[in-house]
């Protein structure tokens, strides 16, 4: 076996040193009746070439991966510069683990420190942590954190316009953890959280209001307005951003009064990989740092005053605090955080804005084109970034026809919002050139 170095003579030497006659004897503490049923019934191993063939064949059966696609809804197709993956293939990065020994882990530590900085800047918040699993679990942890911060307020208002899978995840996390109660806030014809409803329902029992920014319809919520209702009511504003590229142009959550702002970092140079791994982004205000979940890297110095980086504020974490930890998270999504860091370093101050502008323009071009056709109308009136919904025809039928023509023309909103069974959600990014938009119009007009 190419991964296992031990030759028969190596094994003999080790057995002799251990003082047993056979490897089996090392398992004698395991009751025989348990060992009796231990054997694994799987086919014999395969040479590397055969493994490659098997996986090539499976990959070839994912026709969706090569179709022209406008699917978004929390996972977005973006171009990733080649530098990103080359760095990810550096074994010094991918084969290390949580940097418990800082003297030989400065590469990982400094990169995470840079990640924390970039994410904090993007959200315009004071601090970001070293990463969470994904946007959905980050949102759930944000809700739990908000509930800890507001111990007297058990209720959390979840915008119904927040990504449904984020809401489901919040529900799973919150259920049973204390007396917390979740209430869903409706959206209006503009596709935004219903402000009237919010004013009416936000009360002294409300710990936080959670909205997507942009929300699941691609719509940009009016955070200032929401904050101006939540804040006097003593509720925290929590935002969740599934497409953080938007923040290169949009007024950031930090500037709109958010106390906790989370997101999903997959858009930053990370392949779709059928939905994972992405990376959860988690930011908050300095004042709340000690209540924050997840790892944090901080600056430190050695005896000679040389600057370095270490894991810090670990007293919040499970390996120290155990059942009183701010979260149970241990392994996070470090390597994907690294990918996002390299990506943001490359795109940079101007490039990221320019790219966001390309997304903005092309999405609006596509929307105009479709609605101009007459068979579709905009589902919502509020501003959007690179994703939008249109209504007008039975979504499933249209999609099936488009798919037959080799186009994945959008996500049917009916699966999440029964009242929107004639609505399609489309994401348009820099990977969609004019030819792609023309093809889209073609199949959707058909």
């Amino acid at each position, binding site marked *: 076996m190419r991964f296992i170095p031990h030759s028969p003579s190596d094994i003999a030497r080790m057995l002799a040193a251990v003082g047993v006659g056979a490897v089996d004897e090392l398992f004698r503490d395991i009751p025989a009746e348990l060992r009796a049923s231990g054997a694994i019934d799987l086919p014999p191993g395969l040479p590397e070439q055969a493994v490659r063939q098997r996986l090539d064949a499976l990959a070839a059966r*994912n026709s969706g*991966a090569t179709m022209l696609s406008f699917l978004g809804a929390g996972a977005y197709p973006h171009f990733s*510069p080649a530098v990103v993956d080359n760095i990810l293939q550096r074994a010094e990065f991918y084969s290390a683990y949580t940097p418990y020994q800082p003297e030989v882990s400065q590469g990982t530590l400094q990169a995470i420190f840079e990640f924390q900085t970039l994410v904090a800047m993007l959200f315009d918040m004071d601090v970001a942590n070293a990463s969470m699993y994904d946007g959905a679990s980050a949102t759930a942890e944000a809700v*739990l954190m908000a509930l800890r911060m507001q111990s007297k307020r058990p209720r959390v208002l979840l915008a119904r316009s927040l990504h449904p899978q984020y809401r489901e995840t919040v529900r799973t996390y919150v259920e049973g953890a204390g007396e917390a109660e979740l209430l869903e806030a409706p959206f209006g014809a503009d596709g935004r959280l219903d402000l009237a409803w919010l004013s009416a329902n936000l009360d002294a029992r409300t710990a936080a209001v959670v909205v997507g920014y942009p929300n699941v319809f691609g719509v940009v919520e009016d955070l200032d307005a929401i904050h101006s209702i939540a804040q006097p009511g003593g509720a925290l504003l929590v935002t969740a951003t599934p497409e953080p590229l938007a923040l290169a142009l949009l007024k950031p959550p930090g500037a709109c009064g958010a106390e906790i702002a989370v997101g999903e970092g997959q858009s930053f140079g990370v392949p779709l990989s059928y939905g*994972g791994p992405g990376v959860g982004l988690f930011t908050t205000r300095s004042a709340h740092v000690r209540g924050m979940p997840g790892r944090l890297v901080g600056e430190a110095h050695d005896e000679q005053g040389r600057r370095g980086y270490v894991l810090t504020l670990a007293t919040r974490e499970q390996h120290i605090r155990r059942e009183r930890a701010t979260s149970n998270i241990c392994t996070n999504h470090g*390597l994907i955080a690294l990918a996002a860091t390299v990506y943001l370093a490359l795109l940079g101050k101007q490039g990221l804005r320019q790219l966001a502008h390309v997304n903005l323009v092309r999405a609006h071009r596509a929307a105009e084109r479709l609605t101009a056709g007459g068979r579709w109308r905009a589902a919502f009136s509020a501003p959007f970034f690179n994703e939008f919904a249109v209504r007008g025809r039975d979504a499933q039928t249209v999609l099936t026809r488009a798919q037959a023509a080799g186009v994945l023309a959008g996500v049917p909103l009916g699966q999440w919002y029964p009242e929107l069974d004639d609505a399609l959600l489309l994401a348009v990014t820099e990977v969609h050139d004019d030819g792609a938009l023309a093809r889209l119009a073609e199949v959707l007009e058909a």
Partner: protein
Amino acid sequence: MSGLRNKQAGLLLDEPLLFEHGAPGRQGADVATEPGSPADYLPRELLREPIEGFPEVSEPEVLRHFLRLSQWNFGTATTFYPLGSCTMKYNPLTNEVVARLPGFANLHPLAPDETAQGALELCWALEAMLAEISGMDAISLQPAAGAHGELTGMKMVRAYHQDRGGARTTVLIPASAHGTNPASAALAGYKVQTVEGNQLGLVEAAAVQRAMTDQVAALMITNPNTLGLFEREIAQVAEAVHARGGLVYFDGANLNALLGVAKPGKVGADVLQFNLHKTFSTPHGGGGPGAGPIGVREHLMPYLPGPRLARHGDGLRWSAMPERSIGRVRSFHGNVGMLVRAYAYILALGGDGCTQATRMAVLAANYLRVKLAETYQLAQSAICMHEAVFTDKTLEPYGIKTLDVAKRLLDYGTYAPTIYFPLVVPGAMMIEPTESESLETLDAFIASMEAIAREARETPDLLHSAPTTTPIGRLDEARAARRPVLRWSPKPPE
């Protein structure tokens, strides 16, 4: 050599922060252009200014920056990395290649099932493999890591009991358990009650029997435990728990000791998590991403997170959310990119290879146990499984602590063991060689450990000041935590 940059050491080059690089107007990526300005599409009050302090660096600078940073890391690919409880085995490179095949990398999670059959077949096959390996009845691939699997499992335990008259209040956890166990139990709304182990740190059925009440929802047990010992009474322990209607949560992080030897599903486990980034070699990534699938016995199947995979005719489909499911614990289907790697790994090993991996991992651990026992004190002397735990007792007379040994090991070109865990062992050094390391590497490590013991006696200061060959010395973590600097800032952080 005042002229030299402070971190220059050997061929390693000092590297400032990304934000200390670059100059106004530089850009590391060329992007397509579109006419107009954002204000043509979005109301001004929704727009922001360019982000102050955001990087302005060229592509060559970015590559060089991260390349240099990478060289400041040890990894399993560069050196022995005996980090106990983390199973730092070799990460086969083919797995990196297949996970990047466009068919997987470019597949959108909401692509219609008919257009994702390759991915679905892979998940289906991986579920079957993990079920066979663990002896469990059903698998969910959704959780992103071990702790995420634990939380998922404990949520299911809660749902199970709720369907049977009440969630119950308490979860029993041995003192030697990993921190994620109590944290996950608490996150699931349970009080944690510690079960003391015997002098070997093992959980005894009698103790569990005493602790069991009908308010105990589950026992969370790690097997082999964090001392590297197999819980010999696991069957009786499970019986005791089941007798009072409780469930057994089996922390599968140490499964690398059991492949082909014993199946949790056959020793009383009701639910367990796999750490694919440990047992099944998906790269640790400097702290993830991993994957933490869970396996359950039949009675817990209805509560598994959804959607679930199901065969319909000749194809596979995602079901609707099962009615009694605890729901989702994340978006989409799991860390599929990591699942591809684990599947390729199990294919390459096959059943026999998995068993051989465990046998060699356990043999290597025992080899180290016996050899190192000549110089260091074992936490316990029994035959161990995949890892062995030592203490710094023999070095006490010289004022040398586990931390000093760990730091000195870095000078010897080895990563350090897991230290000060498990908490039940004072000054613990937890050493897990895995099956990947050659006998020469194990012998070199033994020689280093012996040399360090000698140094402890003869030149203890050398150890107190270690590491000395690394480009940076011990960092003042206390001060870092007192006045935390958690980011670079254009202006000095407030």
